[in-house]
C-alpha cells in the first residue's frame, strides 16, 4: 500500500468507526440518562507492544467488554471503561454500593449487558452503512489490568500480523465524571471490503 492510499484507508475507517461510536453513545446515553459527548475518532497503526501504551498504559484497571466479528467483516470490538466510571455506571444501574474487586453475578452481568448494548448499536450502525451482515460472537466482560484485557483481542488479530490498526473513539459525560472508549481492531484483510462498500475505488 502506498502512503497516500494508506492515508485514505485511515480516513475511511475513521469515518466508519465514527458512525458506529455515535450510535453506541446514543444508546448508552438513553440507557443511563446521561448526556454523552464523543471525541473525534483516531485511527493508528501500531506494533503489538505499543497498543496498551497508546491507550494509557497496561497497568490501569478497566472494565472491558469484548466481541469478535466472525462473518465477512472480521474485527475485534471493545467497550472499555476506566475503573471509576465502571463503578459509577454499576452504582447508577443497581442502586447499591459496588466494589470492583468483588463484583457479584448481577453486577458482572449488568456490566456485560451494557457492553453488549453498546456493541450492538455500534454494529447495527456500521452494518447498515455498508450493507454487510455482522456476525458477532457472544460478548464477554471482565474487570482487570488493561494489558490483560487486550491480550485476547490482540491474539485474534495478531495471529497473522505484527502491527494492528487501532480505531479509538472516546466518550464522556457532559455534566458528571463518566467516560470510556470504543475500540475497533479490524483485520487487515477486511479493510478492502470496507473500502469498496464505502464507495472507494479498488486499491
Amino acid at each position, binding site marked *: 500500500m502506498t502512503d497516500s492510499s494508506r492515508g485514505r484507508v485511515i480516513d475511511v475507517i475513521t469515518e466508519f468507526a465514527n458512525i458506529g461510536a455515535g450510535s453506541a453513545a446514543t444508546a448508552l446515553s438513553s440507557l443511563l440518562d446521561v448526556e454523552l459527548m464523543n471525541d473525534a475518532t483516531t485511527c493508528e497503526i501500531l506494533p503489538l507492544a505499543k497498543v496498551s501504551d497508546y491507550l494509557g498504559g497496561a497497568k490501569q484497571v478497566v472494565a472491558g467488554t469484548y466481541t469478535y466479528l466472525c462473518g465477512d467483516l472480521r474485527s475485534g470490538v471493545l467497550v472499555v471503561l476506566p475503573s471509576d466510571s465502571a463503578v459509577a455506571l454499576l452504582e447508577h444501574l443497581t442502586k447499591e454500593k459496588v466494589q470492583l474487586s468483588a463484583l457479584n453475578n448481577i453486577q458482572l452481568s449488568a456490566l456485560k449487558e451494557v457492553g453488549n448494548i453498546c456493541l450492538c448499536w455500534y454494529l447495527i450502525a456500521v452494518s447498515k452503512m455498508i450493507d454487510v451482515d455482522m456476525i458477532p*460472537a457472544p460478548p464477554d466482560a471482565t*474487570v482487570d489490568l488493561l494489558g490483560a484485557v487486550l491480550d485476547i483481542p490482540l491474539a485474534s488479530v495478531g495471529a497473522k500480523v505484527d502491527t494492528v490498526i487501532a480505531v479509538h473513539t472516546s466518550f464522556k459525560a457532559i455534566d458528571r465524571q463518566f467516560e470510556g472508549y470504543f475500540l475497533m481492531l479490524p483485520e487487515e484483510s477486511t479493510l478492502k471490503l470496507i473500502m469498496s462498500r464505502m464507495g472507494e475505488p479498488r486499491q
Partner: protein
Amino acid sequence: MREFKVVGIAQLAICRAPEQLACLGLGSCVAVILYDPVLKIAGIVHVLLPKAPAKYEAEEKYADTGTKKLARELVARGAAKERLVAKLVGGAQMFSNLNLAISDIGRGNCTEAKKTLRELGIRVVAEDVEGTRGRSAYLNAETGKVIVETAFSPTRTI
C-alpha cells in the same frame, strides 16, 4: 521499586544485576523468564501465541520460537545453558464465556512454553500461571526473584 524496563507483547529483553525488567498486564500472554544465578543475568520474552506457523517474522511472538531465542541470546551473552532456570507468569483465561477457539489460548501458551523448555533441558522452578486474572511481573536480576502483582489480590513473590 527501582526503575525497570518494560517488555511489551512480542518483545524480548535481557538484563544483568542490578537492572530490572517488567511485563505489565499479562492476560493470556505468558512471560517466559530465564535466569542464570551465577552470572546474575536474566531475560524475559513476552509471548502472545503458542506455536509459530510455517511462515513467520517475529520469533518473539510465539511461545516455542520465543523461548528458544531467549535461551540462545542468554547463552550468547555468556550464560551457561545447564545453569539456566525458568519461571513462567501469565496464561490466564480472560474471557471464559467467549465462544471462540482462541479464548483459552493462555493455557496453550503455557503448555507450549513448558514443552519447549523440556526440549531445551531447562527446569521450571516456579510459576504463577492460568486462572482468570491478569498479572504484572517484575524481575530482579540480582536475586532472580519475580514479584507478581494482580489487580485486586495480594502481591506474590516467586
